[in-house]
Structures are given as structure tokens and as C-alpha cells.
């Protein structure tokens, strides 16, 4: 059996979990085993239906009062008990902050190797190891590696596969587990949450991202990008030069050491397209580059381009969109 660890935040499912299940289902079919999922926390029982549509036949729900909020060591401990009981062939998690964290804890607890952010995994021809392809440098380089261990521990790189429903989902078996936790498992846990004022979407979830780079010229240049993003129900993201210069907070940064985005469209304004930035935009369905330099590296990665000064183009875009929206009402 292959066991997928579902990443969710107090009952809100991280969509990368579904990509991980598709990756896991294909691997399970290849190896000839079934796909199970494990969900930590009681509120997540209602996931069984969407998980079933993604090929899961058994969902292991771990219920315990203290799992009401995230605690990485406790999540790993619960998974470890299921591993000990059911001996899966491999344990997978999405390559999210939590997915990577929980599997690293599991690897440390069980003394097993762990391969982070894999884009493929296959059993080797002779022997028990998996041959995985995993991301280095945020995805600008790949590494083929041999992963040993019983079970194999790996996370699935975001957007390595698209989530795919199975044609005929059968009903899902739900099994409840109550592992024996120690107080130590809850030393690291969320004790408080601080919400950000007024921000409705986060960068990884935004359907539209308006990006700004060096070409924006300074902190005041972002007013028009903000306006454009707001009109499209999107959010502003920036390249590393912008945060290093102190024009915008680091939380706006997109790239290897910032957020990874996956919008319907990424409108990149005055961004040259350094690889450290572009690995954060791999999940974008389309890229529209607005740049005065037709030879900027970003042109090789963009689907659409406007050649011109963003300070002239964006106001024109804003006018045109407002006119279009006014007309459709």
C-alpha cells in the first residue's frame, strides 16, 4: 500500500495534496498496490469524498483533541504508528511547508532517508530502491537519486503532476486511529495565529498575480500594480531585488526563497526573469511580460508580451479594464 499524508489547515484542504494523490495513484498502479491517505485531525472526515475521487480507497483519520491545530512531531508520530501497523511501501506528502516538515520529522524518528520535492519515482529494475528525480535549486536543476528504506519517504514537487480524478471512484473506507502521543509530541505546536489585516488571498492561492521587478523603479511605483491587481481580483508579487532594496516586504517575494505561485495568469512587469525568480512562477498557467527590453530573459518563458514602459502600459491597461467592466454591467 502507498500512504499519502494530506496537508490541510484546520479542515481546509491544500490543493497540492490532490496532485500528490495523483502521483501516488500512478506509482501504486505501477507497483500493484492500493492507495491510502492519512488525515490528521477530526474535522477532516469530510475529505473522504474528494480523496476517493482522486483514487484513495482507505482514509485513516487520526482523532485527538490536541490535533485541533498543527503540531509537526505529533503528525509524524501518528503517521509512524500507521506505518508500523500497516507497513506501507512508501509514504508520500505534498511538497508544501508542512508536507516537507512532517516527512523530515518522520525520517528523523524512524531513521529513514527522505527525498524532498520529487518529480518522478519508479522502483528500480533490480533491487528494492526507488529511482527518484528530485528538484534542486528550487527546480532549476534536477537530481536523479536512489532512495532506499522501508517505507520510502518522499514529497511530491508542487505542480510536477496535475491533479486528476479517477473515472469510477468507489466508496472510501474510513478508519479511525487513536495513537499514543506523548507530551513531547506537542512541544512544537501553534499556540496563536496572527491574521494579516485585510488581505484576502495569499500568493500561492491567487488566481491573478501582478509581479513587479527592478523596472518598477521604487516603492511608489507599486500603486498602479496594486490597482491593476485589485481590478482583476489578484495580488501583487515581487522579485528579490525589490525586497532587498526594501521597496516591499519580503512576504511579497516570489521565487526560490519566496512564495511559489500558480495563477491563471502572471503579469510580470519590469521583471528581467532571473532563474531564482522564475522557479517560483513554474505553476503559472500563462505569463504576460510587460518589459521595455524585448531581449530580456523573461521573454523566453513568457506566453505573451507587451514591449513598452510599464509606467505607460499599466495605466492604459487599468483604463481599458475599467471601461470593459463598466460596459459589461
Amino acid at each position, binding site marked *: 500500500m502507498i500512504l499519502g499524508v494530506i496537508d490541510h*489547515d484546520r479542515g481546509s484542504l491544500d490543493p497540492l495534496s490532490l496532485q500528490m494523490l495523483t502521483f501516488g495513484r500512478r506509482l501504486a498502479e505501477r507497483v500493484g498496490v492500493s492507495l491510502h491517505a492519512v488525515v490528521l485531525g477530526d474535522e477532516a472526515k469530510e475529505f473522504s469524498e474528494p480523496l476517493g475521487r482522486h483514487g484513495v480507497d482507505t482514509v485513516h483519520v487520526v482523532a485527538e483533541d490536541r490535533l485541533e491545530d498543527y503540531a509537526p*512531531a505529533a503528525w509524524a508520530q501518528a503517521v509512524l504508528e500507521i506505518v508500523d501497523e500497516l507497513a506501507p511501501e512508501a509514504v508520500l506528502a505534498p511538497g508544501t511547508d508542512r508536507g*516537507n*516538515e512532517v516527512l*523530515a*520529522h518522520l*525520517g*528523523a*524518528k524512524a531513521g529513514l*532517508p*527522505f527525498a*524532498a*520535492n520529487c518529480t518522478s519515482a519508479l522502483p528500480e529494475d533490480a533491487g528494492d530502491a526507488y529511482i527518484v*528525480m528530485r528538484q*534542486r*535549486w528550487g527546480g*532549476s536543476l*534536477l*537530481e*536523479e*537519486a*536512489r*532512495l*532506499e*528504506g522501508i517505507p520510502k519517504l518522499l*514529497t511530491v514537487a508542487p505542480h510536477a503532476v496535475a491533479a486528476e480524478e479517477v473515472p469510477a471512484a468507489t466508496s472510501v473506507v474510513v478508519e479511525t486511529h487513536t495513537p499514543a502521543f506523548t507530551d513531547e509530541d506537542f*512541544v*512544537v505546536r*501553534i499556540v*496563536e*495565529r*496572527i*491574521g*494579516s489585516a485585510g488581505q484576502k488571498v495569499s500568493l500561492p492561492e491567487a*488566481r491573478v498575480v501582478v509581479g513587479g521587478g527592478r523596472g518598477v523603479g521604487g516603492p511608489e511605483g507599486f500603486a498602479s500594480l496594486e490597482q491593476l491587481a485589485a481590478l*482583476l481580483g489578484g495580488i501583487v508579487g515581487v522579485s528579490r531585488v525589490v525586497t532587498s532594496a526594501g521597496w516591499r516586504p*519580503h512576504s511579497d*517575494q516570489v521565487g*526560490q*526563497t*519566496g512564495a511559489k505561485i500558480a495563477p491563471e*495568469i502572471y503579469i510580470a512587469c519590469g521583471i528581467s526573469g*532571473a*532563474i531564482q525568480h522564475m522557479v517560483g512562477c513554474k505553476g503559472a498557467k500563462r*505569463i*504576460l511580460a510587460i518589459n521595455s527590453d524585448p531581449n530580456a*530573459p523573461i*521573454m*523566453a518563458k*513568457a506566453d505573451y*508580451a*507587451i*514591449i513598452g514602459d510599464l509606467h*505607460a*502600459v499599466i495605466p*492604459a*491597461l487599468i483604463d481599458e*479594464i475599467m471601461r*470593459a467592466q463598466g460596459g*459589461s454591467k
Partner: protein
Amino acid sequence: MNVLVCVKRVPMTGGRISLTPDEQEIDVSYLGFTVSPHEECAVEEAVRLVEAHGGSTTVLTLGPQEAVEQLRDAMATGVDRGVLLETDGEDWDPIATTEAIVERIRVEQDAGTVFDVLLFGNEAADSGDYQVGIRVAYALGMPCVTGVKELEVKDGEAVAKREAGGGREVFRVPLPAVFTVREGINLPRYPSVPGRLKAKQKPLERVRPERRTGGPQKVRLVLPEEHRTEVEVLGNGPDAAPKVVELLRRIGVLSA
């Protein structure tokens, strides 16, 4: 308070990565070296903690003898001493790296240096394994908070915050503890000229740990297929605006 910060020497990759003919390494013939932005911030955080609370800072790296450069860089911004766990330059997997670091921390402890705070980058820039800090914490029986963007230490306790879904998650843990740090926790200072001169005089120890393996085991490096797009130029300057609206309608971002 004693703070340990661990860094890793990595090449400064520019526009394009190329590989050595045996596909084992990045061709670094024309590249300079640095540490990841996360680790630059971890070094700065270590220096700030000791500036605020007193004590001493140690920077440690596992790498080739040239990694002394990265240790001196850290010492130039205020770290007190350096430890090089010297290798022949080949990659060590995360389990092997963890063991070498833990072994050294135990030696330090036996010699009287007990670390209260251990800082790592959230993930190494090159290998991106997301695990060495956590494995070190388990080996030493310490708690570990990852992805830290704000750290406050007081009375043997730390409050660490990290970003999640547009907000912040708050953790409170007893010390000693391990924290893996993300870029943005601070804005690192640049080393001053006197700082660079002083760094040359600061103590630096070299040790050669025994080579071991734990996995995963690197087979070869592969350059990803370059996803080159055929770019469609919608126009020049502001006149392109109507074309953009058309595109946004077609993809459903604007209602038709």
C-alpha cells in the same frame, strides 16, 4: 547565550546552470560562491541575538577547505568563531551531514560550549533537502521550529513566528532549540572593512569528519528540459491594452 549557526557554501548560479561532463556537479569554473539567502539571514539573526543578550556565536559549515571563505564572511559580520568540517568537496547526503554536525556539537559540549539556540537555513540553496535542521534537533533531543520569520528569546524560552496562508503562526518553545530561518526574518548587514580585517584574526578550527552515507544517494544531475515558449507579442506600449482585455476575457479572468 551561545548561538550556533550552520551554513553551506554553494555556487552563485547566474542565468544558466551547466554541468561537469560526469554529471555529478555544477560546472563552477566561472562561478563565485556564497551561502543561501536563508542562511545569510540566519547568520544575521545569530549576531543580533548575541548583541541583545550577550554570549558568543559560532558559525559551522561542512564543506571543502575553500568554505573557509564563507566562515570568514560570517565572522566579518560579527560571528565570533568558525568551525570547518572539512570534506573533499563531494556532496554529503542529509543523514551524513546531520551526523557530522551532531558529533561536532557533542565535542563542543564536552569542551564546555553548550548552545542555547541552533540556527539553520530553511533549506540549502543547492540540494533543497528540507531536513538537516530537524534531524539535528531529534539527535540532540531538542524542539525544532522551521520556516521562522520572527524570533524572540526571553527567559529560557523562544517565541517563533512563521508565515502561513497570508497570516502568521506562533510557536513557543523552551531552549535549547533548533530554528530553521527564512529570508526576510531580518535584513542582513554588509561586512565592513574593519569587520573583514577582524575576521582574519578570529579563531577558526578545522576538523575532518569521517565520511559516511545515509541517503538518498545521488546518481547524477540532470538539467530540466527547457520550457521555451513561443512568445506572442500583443503590441508595443499602451496601444496593446485592448488585446490584453481580450486575452483576460478569453481565459475567464474578466467576464465576457
